[in-house]
């Protein structure tokens, strides 16, 4: 009964983990660079926010299908299909949720006192040590926002998931897709239960983020 929820959480957890690894260096780079390329990279990163999910889903399908070079390579070499399975959902979610991880981290890094980072360099610490020991601990609210919002946003995605993953029970049928199907088949009772759970959980998650941030700001006198 709750398989779609478990699948949504699994998808969101994996997406958050992968995106954190990708977005951390990207957000750091964007926050520190004075390169002319910065606005281009920023615009590219923000695209998933404004694009209709169907556009994103269409391109991902085209790029990953067995007719594409990438899809063909994975099919021939590893015998893995990149569409209509869980792997494709993870890939699609990583594109879809990227800005929600990058943007809070980037603005967090940008808000840091530059001299604090310079003090760390002068203390002999390289950039990686500085990121993990000085930068990240000083932007905890931004870090938490990035992780939680990315998670919540991935759980909440629908359009891209439906296009790239379809609705295979236990494989790609996540909660949002399950609700869509329930409504289509007029199973309103189940749809009510599922939707209520989604609303409740999303609210609790957001509430915890805002509560933490308020407490954190109070503690540090901000």
């Amino acid at each position, binding site marked *: 009964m709750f398989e779609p929820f478990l699948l949504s959480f699994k998808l969101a957890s994996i997406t958050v983990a992968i995106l954190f690894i990708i977005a951390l260096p990207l957000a750091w780079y964007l926050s520190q660079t004075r390169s002319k390329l910065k606005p281009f990279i920023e615009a590219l990163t923000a695209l998933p926010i404004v694009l209709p999910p169907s556009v994103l889903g269409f391109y991902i399908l085209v790029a990953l299908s067995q007719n594409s070079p990438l899809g063909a390579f994975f099919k021939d070499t590893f015998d893995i299909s990149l569409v209509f399975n869980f792997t494709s959902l993870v890939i699609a979610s990583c594109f879809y949720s990227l800005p929600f991880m990058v943007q809070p981290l980037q603005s967090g890094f940008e808000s840091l006192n530059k*001299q604090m980072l310079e*003090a760390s360099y002068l*203390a002999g610490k390289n950039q990686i040590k500085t990121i993990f020991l000085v930068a990240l601990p000083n932007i905890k609210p931004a870090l938490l926002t990035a992780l939680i919002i990315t998670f919540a946003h991935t759980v909440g995605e629908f359009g891209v998931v439906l296009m790239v993953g379809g609705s295979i029970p236990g494989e790609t049928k996540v909660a949002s897709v399950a609700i869509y199907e329930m409504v289509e088949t007029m199973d309103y009772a189940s749809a009510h239960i599922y939707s209520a759970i989604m609303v409740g959980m999303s609210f609790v998650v957001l509430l915890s983020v805002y509560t933490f941030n308020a407490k954190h700001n109070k503690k540090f006198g901000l």
Partner: protein
Amino acid sequence: MIDIKIQKELLGASGTLKLDVELQIKEGEFLALSGTSGSGKTTLLRIIAGLEKAEGEIEVAQKSWLNAKTALSPQKRSIGFVFQEYALFDNMTVLQNLLFVAKDKTLALRLLELTELTELQKRYPKTLSGGQKQRLSLCRALMQKPKILLLDEPLSALDPSIRAKLQTQILKLHKEFGTTTIMVSHDPSEIYKLASRVVVLENGKIIKDGKPKELLLKQNGSQKFSFSGELLELKKVDIIYVAVIAIGQQIVEVVLSKEEASRHKIGDSVTISTKAFTPTLS
């Protein structure tokens, strides 16, 4: 010996400015860097620290930090930097701030003791006062036993009584650690008290270089007392003129002749001096 010979184009308030500095500093010297704002003082410190790029050469104790081919990264230079805005690590306690630089607890505790911060070692920077933050920042800069200690207007944000106390501590630490210290300062009494040499920068060039005594004591002729101040008010009282002048933190009134009054206007920087009288100290 520290040899500095650098050039850099700066974007100043009034167009571009060429920083062009040639400076030799003896080891153990306490050098005060003075000059109007925008003259390149902070940039010079940042170039020495490797935080900003520049053309030219920097050599410290026969080791090249900067030349045409390479620039040593800030991590590899032995620099203690005290920023004007402290720049402490807010996520670490007072003691952790020091241990982050070097894992030497004995030294950390000694520095805290010298600066009277021992009691506060478990506190976080955000809970400290300005003076305490500045002392911690100074301790942190000394944790790696730097070859050069750079102080960027370290005391400008503090009130006079704390300033005086911290000046004594800076001097104590400078002597105890035998570092070469370069401090940006505008305060003549601070420079006189601490520095063994003053360099005055203007528009990116050195315009004066000498002992504080020679540069700061304004002895034109045989005056015994001489102060610089700002003319705040000029008023005519019957047949004389009275000028109100701000000298440091004090306001004084001086009687002027008509001829003197006509030479000055409100807002002027003036020197007021006198000779042949017996001052009393109380």
